[in-house]
């Protein structure tokens, strides 16, 4: 069985202007959203407390809000988490000392119990991150992304050529930018787990790009006299079927994870899902044309 014509000769390069426009639109939207709306940082980075409780019967959110407001906690987010009985409570970092903050989860449970069915709730999860740790995690997260980019830049420059390395890293920035932009646009919670997923997206997207580059390198040896436009088109076309099949199998399992993996893993799976989609697009429409552009610049 073949889903894609074996003799495809789609002229990707001639359509690159369209791809540039699309990419530019997505990146500008992302950048705009990040600049003006910012990211909805989870407590991993902003510091604060997260409490997940399960009630025996679906509780009344309004009532929860009322009893919790008596604790005077400042900004409190109360939401359903996957099921109506499952409630997630996020409290921003408190002005009080760290001790009071770390005892907060207990206080919240004690406050919720009287209004719960059977006067008890199941404590599912507590996450408390002090402001100091939050800042350290932010720095670590940023450094991790930078380190992996640099390591990749060197590896690709060593295995291929410098212009390929630039292309690969630019494609990665493109993928990360748009994925982070999505989180900003949707104001979805940006957590440590999302950063881990982003790093994985780097690995995946790069994998895709390298496969195409490898083919470009091979075709360059085969057609020494042809120009780079032809070669890149040939390489992208020849690897197209593989690119799409691998994306598909990966997306299949990610869909399984999204649908059946539970709420805790949901954002992780969503980030990967988005990243794989964008990564696939970028290895065809971004990473390869960039090599062409850089080539023109160099030969001028």
């Amino acid at each position, binding site marked *: 069985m073949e889903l894609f014509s074996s003799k495809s000769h789609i002229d990707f390069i001639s359509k690159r202007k369209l791809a540039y426009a699309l990419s530019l639109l997505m990146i500008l939207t992302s950048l705009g959203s990040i600049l003006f709306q910012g990211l909805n940082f989870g407590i991993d980075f902003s510091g604060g407390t997260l409490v997940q409780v399960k009630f025996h019967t679906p509780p009344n959110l309004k009532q929860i809000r009322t009893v919790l407001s008596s604790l005077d906690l400042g900004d409190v987010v109360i939401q359903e988490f996957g099921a109506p009985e499952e409630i997630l409570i996020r409290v921003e970092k408190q002005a009080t*000392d760290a001790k009071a903050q770390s005892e907060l989860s207990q206080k919240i449970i004690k406050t919720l119990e009287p209004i719960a069915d059977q006067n008890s709730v199941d404590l599912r999860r507590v996450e408390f*991150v002090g402001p100091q740790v939050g800042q350290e995690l932010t720095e670590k*997260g940023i450094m991790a992304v930078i380190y992996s980019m640099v390591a990749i830049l060197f590896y690709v420059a060593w295995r291929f050529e410098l212009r390929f390395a630039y292309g690969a890293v630019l494609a990665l920035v493109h993928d990360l930018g748009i994925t982070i932009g999505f989180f900003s646009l949707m104001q979805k919670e940006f957590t440590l787990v999302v950063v881990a997923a982003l790093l994985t997206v780097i690995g995946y997207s790069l994998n895709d790009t*390298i496969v195409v580059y490898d083919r470009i390198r091979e075709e360059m040896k085969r057609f020494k006299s042809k120009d780079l436009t032809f070669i890149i088109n040939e390489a992208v076309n020849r690897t197209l079927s593989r690119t799409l099949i691998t994306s598909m199998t990966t997306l299949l*399992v990610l869909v*399984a994870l999204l649908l059946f993996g539970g709420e805790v893993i949901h954002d992780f799976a969503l980030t990967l899902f988005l990243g794989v989609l964008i990564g696939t697009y970028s290895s065809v429409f971004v990473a390869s044309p960039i090599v062409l552009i850089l080539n023109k610049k160099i030969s001028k």
Partner: protein
Amino acid sequence: MRQLPTWKPVLIFLVTFSSLLYSTPTILGGAPSWWPSWLSSQVISRGLDLQGGLYLLMQVETDKAVEQSAENLVDEVRGVMRQERLRYRGVERKGIDSVIIKLSNRSEPEKMRSIVKREFPQTVLNEDISGKVWTVSFTPEKIKETRKFAVEQSIETIRSRIDQFGVSEPTIQKQGQERILIQLPGLEDPVRAKSIIGKTARLEFKLLDEKGDLSGALAGRIPPGDVLLYGEEKNRATGRLTRQPYLLKKRTVLAGDLLTDARVNFDQQFNEPNVSISFNRQGARKFAQLTGENVGKRMAIVLDKLVYSAPVIREKIEGGRAQISGTFTPEEAHDLAIVLRAGALPAPVTFIEERTVGPTLGRDSVEQGLASILIGAAMVLVFMIIYYKGFGLLANIAVIVNVLILMAILTVLQATLTLPGIAGAVLLLGMAVDANVLIFERIREELRLGKTPMAAIDHGYAKAFSTIVDANITTLITAIVLYQFGTGPVKGFAVTLSIGLLASMFTAIFLTRVVLSMYISGRRLEKLSI
């Protein structure tokens, strides 16, 4: 076709078979009863997020430990001065690491200087211009040592508390200079564990300043040498808590470091729990002397700056036993006895990061994780057979062996499987077939060029090889960075991903090739099922 070397199928068989042996206990959820004892019965250890538990990162406030030793130095200086009959105007603590000695006109600086030098070796003496105000400061080495000791002592104390509380396989380790990382798996009551770990448990006995002006102190005029502390009192009828102020002498007349035991008792009258403590011989002597000298006065029992009770001393108490009563629940009394037995922390600790996963959420995560793995795997396997037919089957064998190897290695390394780790495994399934997709697409291409099946297979594998290596190495690079940067669960993910990727190169390239060669050896292939 070249002759297939015998070692290749043998290696594959050995790897597959031993992986199966190591992963069976995990697959079956624990080694079954018929499982031979000489085989490994280890299972993959599950992270806190899967089995439930408590992850705590705490900061030891070592400043307080330094401050406490400066406070002790004040007492020591006073003692030496008295002993040596030296005259001075006053001794007090300054900052966290210094003591100020104020000299009077009748002081003898020469003699004092030599005595301070002799008695307090780990300090530096500075005199002001007038020569009347001396500052005795700890040396930087002494401060560093005090901080280090405070962290180590805290770890020991917390370990002993946790052992008495009864948690299996706790992890307690130093992180950085002043932090302690605690992981307690499979905990039923994390809230209680937290209170046991975090209590400083500084037990002090202080005399009340009954002549002092309590209302003046409440208004901010605390008499020198006194301290204002509070106690909580519970009304038995209404259950309401009220805060009760106490004006106490600052000096601690007896402390909890002289304890030998602490037990829970029940009060006869109200059947309320209290904690009885026994002092060692030195403590008992001090306690007897103290109570003997202060009959009729009130003495407060203070724990972590909270006054538990302030009874009137009716008579001299011999035998070194005392009782801490308060409004405890039986659990609170039990936990208090634990922390008193294990001793006080040398410095207060603050929790700076906490992640608790309740046991029920852990169970749900395992179920959901397994379900998504099975469903995801099934979809990929079916897709591969539809798309690549016979070769799809080959790739599927590779994926299954890949999963077995991954499980076996995780078992042998006793790596911790976390929820993101399960996600990594799911993702890996999708990516593991990638190498085979690359090879198969290449073979199809070669076939289209009119090559014979054998030649197409040879070329397909050869050409795809370098691509696969490059692609996987770059992914490995990010996995390594992830491992460096990540905390617990994320680390688990990086480990799963890296091992899985390495295993996938073995199965997707080597294993499929050998199985293929075995299948086609001796057959005349006209057409490939691809």
